[in-house]
């Protein structure tokens, strides 16, 4: 125990538990379902996680600062739609410029959220419910001349094939580019959270906003930037969404904001700010994605029950967070106190008696 408290933090224990649950699910369904351990399963699960994981990163950033972004799904939808329409007419746009277009639009939409929330001091939940509705309407208006849809067959060839592009294959396991992008984003966000002063200040703000106000760093700007980056990530999510599905309707991306919240919460991001990691949220997305796919494959479970089970999982995650994490933190605090006493005694011994 003493050793564990020294090398791990409670949050990391939490992540290991999520990982453990994923392994349990995979092993469990592996015995339950035939043809479960196949390359097909890996591709289906990994690509379905990719989009949610990217959007969950956005949600994680704002959740750490005690905020929320419910417009993420609408931003994904709008960016996907905008890009889809553009690509339908301009086949000369390549994959990289296309990604930049989607990211730029997402950034602009995130900026609007950030301005209202950080500088206008409007509660995040109200602001993003409002902008969610507005961005959704923007999709409808923008897509009206197109009949409200984007069709895959009008997209350039690369966009139709992108989803099946592979980085590498290990036997049956096909590691897709989409998945690679998502994992790269997770790693970048995690590095930012751990190694940039900006990342640490996100935690500080969510941890104690009052203290952040008097600690002498620009709290408003930091929250604003979190929404801006969140918007950019949602833009990237929109890019991946278009390339994954090809055919879009005006409801594209609806509900993704909640999937992102679910992934973050299941992965140990505290919705009341201050704690959570990108890796955790990614593991949360993986857990949900794996469970969702596996339940789909299981004939005994109807669609209705699948949703209920996923809902239960989220409630369970929140409940454990408030109960078990508090326990863990207590154990860690006691261990630290014991170490402090040890250190004090060592110091007292090393000093000559006056």
């Amino acid at each position, binding site marked *: 125990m003493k050793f564990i408290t020294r090398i791990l933090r409670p949050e990391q224990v939490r992540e290991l538990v999520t990982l453990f649950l994923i392994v349990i699910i995979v092993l469990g369904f592996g015995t339950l379902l035939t043809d479960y351990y196949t390359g097909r399963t890996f591709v289906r699960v990994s690509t379905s996680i990719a989009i949610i994981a990217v959007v969950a990163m956005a949600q994680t950033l704002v959740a750490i600062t005690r905020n929320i972004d419910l417009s993420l799904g609408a931003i994904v939808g709008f960016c996907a739609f905008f890009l889809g329409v553009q690509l339908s007419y301009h086949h000369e746009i390549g994959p990289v410029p296309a990604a930049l277009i989607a990211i730029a639009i997402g950034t602009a939409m995130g900026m609007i959220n950030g301005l209202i929330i950080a500088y206008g001091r409007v509660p995040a939940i109200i602001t993003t419910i409002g902008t969610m509705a507005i961005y959704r309407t923007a999709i409808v208006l923008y897509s009206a001349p197109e009949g409200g849809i984007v069709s895959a067959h009008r997209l350039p060839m690369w966009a139709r094939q992108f989803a099946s592009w592979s980085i590498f294959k290990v036997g049956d396991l096909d590691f897709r580019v989409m998945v690679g992008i998502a994992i790269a984003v997770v790693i970048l966000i995690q590095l930012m959270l751990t190694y940039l002063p900006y990342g640490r200040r996100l935690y500080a703000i969510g941890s104690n906003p009052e203290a952040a106000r008097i600690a002498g760093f620009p709290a408003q700007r930091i929250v604003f930037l979190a929404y801006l980056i969140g918007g950019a990530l949602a833009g990237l999510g929109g890019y991946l969404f278009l390339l994954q599905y090809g055919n879009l309707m005006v409801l594209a991306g609806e509900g993704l904001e909640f999937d992102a919240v679910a992934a973050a919460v299941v992965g140990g991001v505290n919705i009341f700010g201050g704690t959570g990691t990108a890796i955790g949220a990614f593991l949360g997305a993986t857990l949900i994605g794996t469970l969702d796919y596996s339940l789909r494959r299981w004939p005994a479970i109807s669609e209705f029950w699948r949703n209920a089970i996923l809902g239960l999982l989220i409630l369970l995650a929140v409940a454990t967070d408030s109960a078990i994490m508090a326990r863990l933190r207590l154990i*860690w605090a006691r261990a630290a106190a014991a170490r402090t006493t040890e250190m004090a005694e060592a110091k007292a011994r090393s000093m000559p008696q006056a």
Partner: protein
Amino acid sequence: MTEPILELLHISKRFDMTQALDDVSLAIYPGEIHALVGENGAGKSTLIKIATGVHQPDTGEIRVQGRPVVIHNSQEAQALGIAAIYQEPMIFPDLNVAENIFISHRSRGPFVRWNQMYKDAEEILAKLGVVMDVRQSAQGLTVAQQQTVEIARAISLDVRVLIMDEPTSALSLHEVQQLFKLVRSLRDRGIAVLFIGHRLEEVFEIADRITVLRDGKLISSRPRSEVTVEQVIRDMVGREVEEFFAKSSVQHGEVVLSVRGLTKQNVFYDVNFDLRRGEVLGFAGLVGSHRTDVALALFGIEPADAGEITIDGKSVRIRSPQQAMELGIAYVTEDRRKYGLVMPMPICANITLPTLPQFLNGLGLIQRQKEIEVAEQFRQRLNIMTPSVLNTVERLSGGNQQKVLLCKWLNVQPKVLILDEPTRGIDVGAKVEVHHMINDLAAQGIGIILISSDLPEVLAMSDRILVMHEGRQMGIYTREEATQEKIMAAAMGHPEAILERQA
């Protein structure tokens, strides 16, 4: 003498009706521990907030090392070398100790170098002579440790003036000694410390210079060696009891409320008193004396852990406000906006809120006409200045809001009425009316507990005064024996006060 590091010159600040600071000048020197003392509302907090840029003075000048400066926010104060440590530690619980120390540093490079940060944090703590695991999450730290982290943060930012606002209020005796050791070592390194204290023994132990504020004015500022405890207490109270607090004498009836050994762990201990019908029992004490917590326990909002409460000779346990109300206890809160009134609701609806079942017809619907009639009676009785009881409460002045709040609880027809700071933030005229009301209510045989930080008010309105200091009852003084000095000495927890009383 060296040049002062921080000078506040002729500072005045006004909030609405109250003159928080009136032409206060203060000079703080490096290597000096400067204590600031005063009653609640003397202007100590306002002065700190001006020095740290939270508030701007209306008039006056701030100088840092002789240079006039304008401080817009705590960031700028920090840049000038001024940092404050508050009663509630401003710590980030989800970050670890080292991060808490360096969170607002700008010049530590574009990346967080964790190992370097741990090393630097250990170094700073070692310099302060503190042993602590810098990788530990701040969540598990004691208040004393959290303060130490805050001091380390200030030191790491090269602070030259450290303001400490009642830092000892949540510390044990041993921790206070540790803190003082730390504060002295800061002084010896040439840092100026402005120490706001509420325990006189502590102030006399640590301070090199003691400054007394009263009613926003600077009363005295002298080296510790030149003042006595008695002098400081006299400077702190020093006000004459104004005439208009006329107390009418009322025949006291039988004991209506009796409290024995009332205790709530870590909040207040062993509170004992009797309250008779028609009696006004004053509760005196400074911030942190937990007077209000006793009231909250009696009203069932924060029930006590132990002790006995007797109402009309019957032993009762009070677990909720509903229960307290049924037993005939009413509590007029000190925070009108937060707990007392529903600002956007009409006056009449506010008054009938606790007694709404009496205003329902057979179908369970509210009888508006009856509500208005009752409210109208109160309006005339208490002279609430409003054209109509249908107006919303938010449009009334502070004094009139206070009256509405009183009406709300008088309508319950209580046996025991607890008034928590009933005259805070209202103007003099309204104050007099509230005092008349207190007299009237006592004359009607209601037992009244009057909690007030306004010492002359407590002295003038009360038949007896119970003084609390940090959750302990220091004594009950009769009207005849009570003086401002005695009450203040007891409220500051000064042992001589008790000796004097027993003698």
